[in-house]
């Protein structure tokens, strides 16, 4: 397949290359003097100037501790911090911002559910179902929880082309389950899971459903009401926001009934020497001074994405995926993982080059200015499924464009030539 760098993006969408000036990371050349081709959004995304400047402005002119100060600066900081919570709520279609708990990242969001909801509701003999497709963040907390309470943990199998086996999901849910924990998009393979159907099956089996949206929320519209899930976890740093901030969404009734995860300041209404009364949600889960400016930065990232439109973001990445899949498929010695159907595959391509270790691939790519991830992507059960130690992974975002697809294919050929 021939690709011309000047080929226009899909109608109605935006040009990725035209967004690059918004991202300071693209200002200069790489160490090797090349244009930076950043294909590792799945690990963490670059930040637009608007996020960086909003945070700098917040620290410079609007900073004080939140929720406590009886003075203008604190009220200003509180209103910006709570405004960010409203933005997160709107971004994922939550009915109320009270259902948004600020956490460090999706990992902490999942741990919060495992420690708080899990230890209060799970008992010996209960079943938790997750999948072999998950990031370790959606596996290890459930391993720890089920071991601790004597519950069982089941993994839904994945097909040769990286899709969840829904028949296996039905089988694992047979006899009931307390919780089903599943990713919206696989970070290792890029598979888009059919969440609506999965959530329906989970509910039919009596399970609550937690969605790990770390890899989906940054790249496609997410609506918790339409999905009908029970918990949803996301990370700010993968969606143009700062590191150190993420969110847990939970149904209000569930959050209300859950005991606190961490305790201390802010999360109480009254403390005596005999005990304490818990604050209302979400503050019950936000002990201590939160990541104030990071939350405000996440709000700015959501504004940036909102201006593009999440439907357009998804369409843009679907277009780049389809181009990249086609051009890489044409190169001999390239094994592409995950579904070929662009409707089932996010802008994440995991691949293996015959006879060349993914770490060597990434090192050669680096010399070409192409930043990709090599490794198990914190999803070792996926690697186990395909009997490989690691893959190389290229992942797209809003600032990527056809020229990056060309650079990816060129880097593959250069690597093969060096090792050939």
């Amino acid at each position: 397949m021939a690709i011309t760098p000047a080929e226009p993006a899909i109608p109605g969408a935006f040009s990725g290359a035209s967004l690059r000036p918004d991202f300071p990371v693209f200002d200069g050349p790489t160490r090797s003097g090349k244009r930076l081709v950043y294909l590792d959004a799945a690990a963490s995304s670059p930040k637009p100037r608007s996020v960086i400047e909003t945070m700098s402005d917040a620290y410079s002119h609007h900073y004080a501790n939140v929720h406590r100060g009886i003075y203008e600066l604190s009220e200003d900081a509180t209103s910006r911090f709570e405004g960010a919570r409203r933005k997160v709520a709107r971004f994922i279609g939550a009915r109320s911002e009270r259902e948004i708990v600020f956490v460090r990242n999706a990992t902490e969001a999942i741990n919060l559910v495992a420690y708080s909801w899990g230890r209060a509701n799970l008992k010996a003999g209960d079943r938790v179902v997750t999948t072999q497709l998950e990031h370790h963040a959606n596996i290890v907390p459930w391993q720890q929880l089920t071991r601790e309470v004597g519950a069982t943990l089941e993994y839904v199998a994945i097909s040769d082309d990286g899709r969840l086996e829904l028949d296996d999901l039905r089988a694992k849910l047979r006899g009931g389950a307390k919780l089903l924990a599943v990713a919206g998009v696989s970070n290792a393979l890029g598979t888009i899971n059919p969440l609506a159907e999965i959530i329906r099956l989970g509910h039919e089996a009596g399970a609550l459903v937690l969605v790990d949206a770390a890899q989906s929320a940054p790249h496609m519209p997410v609506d918790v009401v339409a999905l009908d899930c029970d918990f949803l976890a996301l990370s700010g740093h993968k969606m143009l926001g700062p590191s150190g901030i993420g969110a847990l969404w939970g149904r209000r009734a569930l959050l209300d009934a859950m005991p606190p995860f961490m305790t201390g300041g802010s999360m109480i209404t009254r403390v005596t020497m005999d005990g304490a009364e818990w604050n209302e949600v979400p503050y019950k889960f936000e002990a201590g001074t939160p990541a104030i400016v990071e939350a405000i930065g996440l709000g700015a990232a959501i504004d940036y994405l909102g201006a593009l439109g999440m439907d357009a973001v998804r369409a843009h990445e679907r277009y780049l995926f389809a181009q990249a899949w086609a051009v890489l498929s044409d190169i001999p010695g390239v094994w592409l993982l995950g579904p070929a159907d662009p409707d089932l595959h996010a802008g994440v391509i995991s691949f293996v080059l015959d006879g060349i270790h993914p770490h060597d691939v990434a090192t050669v790519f680096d010399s070409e200015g192409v930043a990709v991830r090599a490794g198990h992507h914190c999803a070792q059960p996926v690697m186990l499924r395909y009997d490989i130690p690691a893959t190389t992974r290229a992942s797209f975002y809003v600032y990527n464009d056809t020229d990056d697809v060309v650079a990816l294919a060129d880097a593959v050929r250069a690597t093969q030539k060096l090792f050939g």
Partner: protein
Amino acid sequence: MDNLYRDFILEHYRNPHNKGFLDPHDLHFADSNPTCGDEMSMTLRLDPSTHAIEDVAFDGRGCAISQASASIMTDGLRGQTVEQVKAMNPKDLLDELGVPIGPARLKCALLAYKVLQGAVRGGEVAWPEEAEAVG
């Protein structure tokens, strides 16, 4: 880059020396690189009287850097005593590789050293501090 993948590194990667599994052996140890999941095992045969290394083999799959490093390191082991191996300096191995190894790849270059030390010390050893360099 062309520096890192110099011809002799690629040559050792394509045709590694001392690759395999010695049976019987006196010492055996396997370890892995947590950053990539690569696993490597090493078997050694010792001279019964002098405890010098008679033969050595490594096995496992890994990147060009880890495989070439194991190939080059094992080439120099025959005739060395266990005590000499214990006293090996990981810097010497990095010097012997003779290519600039970035911080992200140091564990690749030193996996063979770590496996060897595990074998002669009878259990897993910590990564040498050279592998923890951050820049």
